[in-house]
């Protein structure tokens, strides 16, 4: 849970962290849309949807 490196400070809301942990999502791969770039629940959910899409369809279909 604790950040081991100041530089790697990932800004995410507590709920986003909980949901990411529950679903094994690496927060550092997500671009946050909250204030100051904080990762929100919605960002994590969108990322997960895309990840599922990636598995089902060809990578090109994601964008």
């Amino acid at each position, binding site marked *: 849970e604790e950040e081991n490196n100041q530089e790697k400070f990932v800004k995410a809301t*507590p709920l986003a962290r909980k949901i990411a942990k529950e679903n094994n999502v690496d927060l550092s791969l997500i671009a946050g849309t909250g204030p100051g770039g904080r990762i929100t*629940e919605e960002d994590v959910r969108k990322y997960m949807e895309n990840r599922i899409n990636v598995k089902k369809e060809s990578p090109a279909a994601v964008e």
Partner: protein
Amino acid sequence: MDYNVIVIGGGPGGYTAAIRASELGARVALVEENSLGGTCLNRGCIPTKVYAHAASIINEIKKAGQFGIAAQYTLDVNKLRAKKEKVIERLVGGVGYLMRAYDVDVIKGKAKFLDRNTIQVDRKYTAEKFIIATGSKTLFPPVPGIDLPGVMTSDRALELERVPERVAIIGAGIIGLEFANIYSSLGSQVAVIEMLPEMLPMVDRDIAGILQSALEDRGIELHLNSRVEKIEEGPIVVFTKGGNTERLECDAVLVAVGRVANVNGVEVLKLQMEGKGIKVDDFMRTNIDNIYAVGDVTGGIQLAHVAAYQGIIAAHNAVGEKRKADMKVVPSCVYTEPEIAWVGLNETLARKKYGDIKVGTFTYSASGRALTMGEDYGLIKMIAEAKYNQIVGMEVIGRDATEIIHEGVLAIKEEFTAEEIAETIHAHPTISECIKEACEDILGLPINKVRTSNNL
């Protein structure tokens, strides 16, 4: 073009937009036909709070006996009104100072659009972008006798020429209740007449109920489910309640049934409307792409902080950024005694949205800080959805409600779960530490109260 951005209206929506647009590099003018600061500074938030504070001093004096302080007072309304004027003058002067400091040209007069890039005031002015922030005005219900002498709007009531012996207030909304509190504390006999079956329908009944008893304990009459039929000379308010017709003799009537968007000077633009306000999208843009509208004129939530926030969003977009307004988390405050504040979803709405919810509570009667101040009624409620314990709503009634609500505002905005607040050290003794207790209650682990069995 004369300007990059012209703002119409100098209330909190307009002057905030003008300052931010200037900070972002735009050449800005602001048109105001009246006094800078708008409704908020001149006839709204600020004067009512001066009177509310006077009311709170009087109530504090009345309750001081328990602390061994025996006090007597006399009230000089003229001095109180002068204090109100002084505070307004200082804040309005402050806005004027800011306009100069931020190089915003203030144009005095009423603006009227000639086309999408031109307005007429004393002369024509052109701009690439416009932000309309013309606010709202008191709604007069179509009741016979509404124009009789002795019938006032809030504007007039704030003049406070004297403290009327008996006041009837039509409407138990935020403004009506704040005036009820003020008049009653200053010494009037107050009756409030409300058409709806309940007061403050947006908060849960346990919270509204505490306010209702508090007001009734102080001698304020509340007539719910009551419809004003007419006002007769006297004035006498005639209303029906449960089939019966009642007549209320009084010395003054305050009409506080709502406010309507003040849409004027824009006729030529043929702006799309929504209800009685100007329709805007999430970027505060009207259907004409160089014209934005913010605040009360949009017919949305009529609060100064909403107007100011929208002003900021509009300013960023007017200078070419793309910023979306996030109106999910807006606190509401009622400056009665006790104060009420809320944010997010109440229990009913939360249950509707999430199905399973948890509610954590803490009462002022168990708060060390509240007891040291002789405040033993008050209640804090934290509402969470039950899966992640995400905080989705907060309601408070009691001393300092309007300040401590901001912990809930931040928590909801930043998607906190109850754990984050529960595990944060809160100072002792404070009212805020009760928020932590209520969150521990959500988790089934409160300290200074017995556990709420539903949360176990």
